[in-house]
């Protein structure tokens, strides 16, 4: 049973970088699908607009967000002993993007760095990985970068209407006596093909045929683009996310209603509304950012905090239950209290601001 209670750890700060370029789904000339109007897509998914820039990678977005957060926290570069990157749109097949960020951010060479390949559940997994490294105080400060941006193959100038690009940074530090983080995780790999990018890995080797376009439900894909069984993912999300929150509360004997905010992965509006209603929580306690940023994969939880709770969660002690769920299939829920949380202003990144 993957329950964890990491003590002596605190979330110190959060920042988020997004492309400056905005794509509006309502005013876009391109039809999202031949089967429905763009306004119906917006009504169901809640995604009015989103950030997209075909020139920016996840690491470009995370780099600028990291510099801002380090500055806002007043951390010294030499104190940061670990950096972990969670993404499914990494700079290279190899080496790890976290290694590049270590160097470009000017972190010490005595630094732990690794990539974790997860999507919508990724922030919860990343936080737990960092918390596990820090909880004994062997290292004191670490950065977690989460997000997705430019995919390996860009087919349109506007990208997928559901997804937005973002790169976030969460600063986590050792804090003796802090009650820390309580976590629940789960995995169901039988749903591995519910969200999948079928080619470009080693199971299906690359060939020129995979550049051929095929139509699935009125949308066009080649072999290097992510396809999703929307109905299966919807069923999975509305059943798994509420259960995970309830399991965590039961395991650690707390009433989840006592928490100030519920930050769910921003999947789509209909799915999130259903999750909120199944838990019978007040909508005002479950802020959303998908209307202006879309589904931003592993960035969605920290981006929701940055875009919706700056000036609120950073001015007084605030308790959070954060739940991510998606590709894998994979899910996780984390409960924690944040005091003196630093939330950076949203960082906008221009097309020419490259890490490399």
């Amino acid at each position, binding site marked *: 049973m993957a329950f964890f209670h990491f003590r002596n750890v605190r979330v110190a700060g959060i920042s988020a970088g997004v492309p400056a370029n905005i794509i509006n789904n309502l005013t876009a000339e391109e039809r999202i699908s031949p089967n429905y109007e763009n306004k119906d897509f917006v009504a169901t998914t809640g995604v009015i607009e989103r950030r997209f820039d075909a020139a920016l990678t996840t690491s470009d977005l995370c780099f600028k967000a990291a510099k801002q957060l380090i500055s806002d926290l007043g951390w010294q570069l030499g104190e940061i002993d670990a950096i972990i990157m969670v993404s499914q749109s990494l700079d290279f097949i190899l080496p790890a993007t976290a290694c590049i960020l270590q160097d470009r951010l000017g972190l010490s060479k005595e630094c732990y760095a690794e990539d974790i390949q997860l999507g919508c559940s990724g922030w919860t997994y990343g936080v737990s990985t960092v918390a596990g490294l820090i909880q004994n105080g062997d290292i004191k400060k670490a950065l977690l970068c989460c997000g997705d941006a430019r995919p390996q193959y860009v087919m349109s100038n506007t990208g997928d209407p559901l997804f937005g690009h973002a790169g976030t940074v969460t600063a986590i530090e050792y804090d003796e006596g802090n009650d820390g983080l309580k976590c629940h995780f789960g995995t169901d790999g039988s749903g591995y093909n519910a969200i999948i990018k079928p080619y470009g890995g080693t199971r299906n080797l690359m060939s020129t045929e995979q550049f051929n376009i095929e139509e699935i*439900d009125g949308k066009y894909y080649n072999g290097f683009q992510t396809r999703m069984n929307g109905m299966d993912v919807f069923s999975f999300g509305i059943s798994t996310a509420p259960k995970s929150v309830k399991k965590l509360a039961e395991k650690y004997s707390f009433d989840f209603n006592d928490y100030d905010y519920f930050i769910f992965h921003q999947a789509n509006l209909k799915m999130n509304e259903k999750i909120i209603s199944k838990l019978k929580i007040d909508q005002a306690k479950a802020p959303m950012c998908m209307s202006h940023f879309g589904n931003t994969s592993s960035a969605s939880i920290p981006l929701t905090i940055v875009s919706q709770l700056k000036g609120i969660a950073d001015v007084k002690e605030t308790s959070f239950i954060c739940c991510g769920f998606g590709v894998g299939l994979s899910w996780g829920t984390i409960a924690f209290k944040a005091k003196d949380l630093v939330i950076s202003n949203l960082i906008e990144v221009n097309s020419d601001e490259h890490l490399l």
Partner: protein
Amino acid sequence: MELNDFIKKFAEQFEETAPEEIQASTEFKSLEEWSSLTSLSILAMVDDEYDVALKGDDIKNAVTVEDLFNKVASKA
């Protein structure tokens, strides 16, 4: 669970299609208003009303409203 009640709840998920257009024998994927977005409303309704988690294939394999009712009934 009862077929007529299911049909009524099924029809409530549509905005432009008149309720009387939806019968047990209706081939719902042929309805003009049907799309992948409607299917999400159906999944949410079935979860709400019958506490049943349908798979995408359950909807793909059903032709009529009654087919889907039978699938939900078998999982309820």
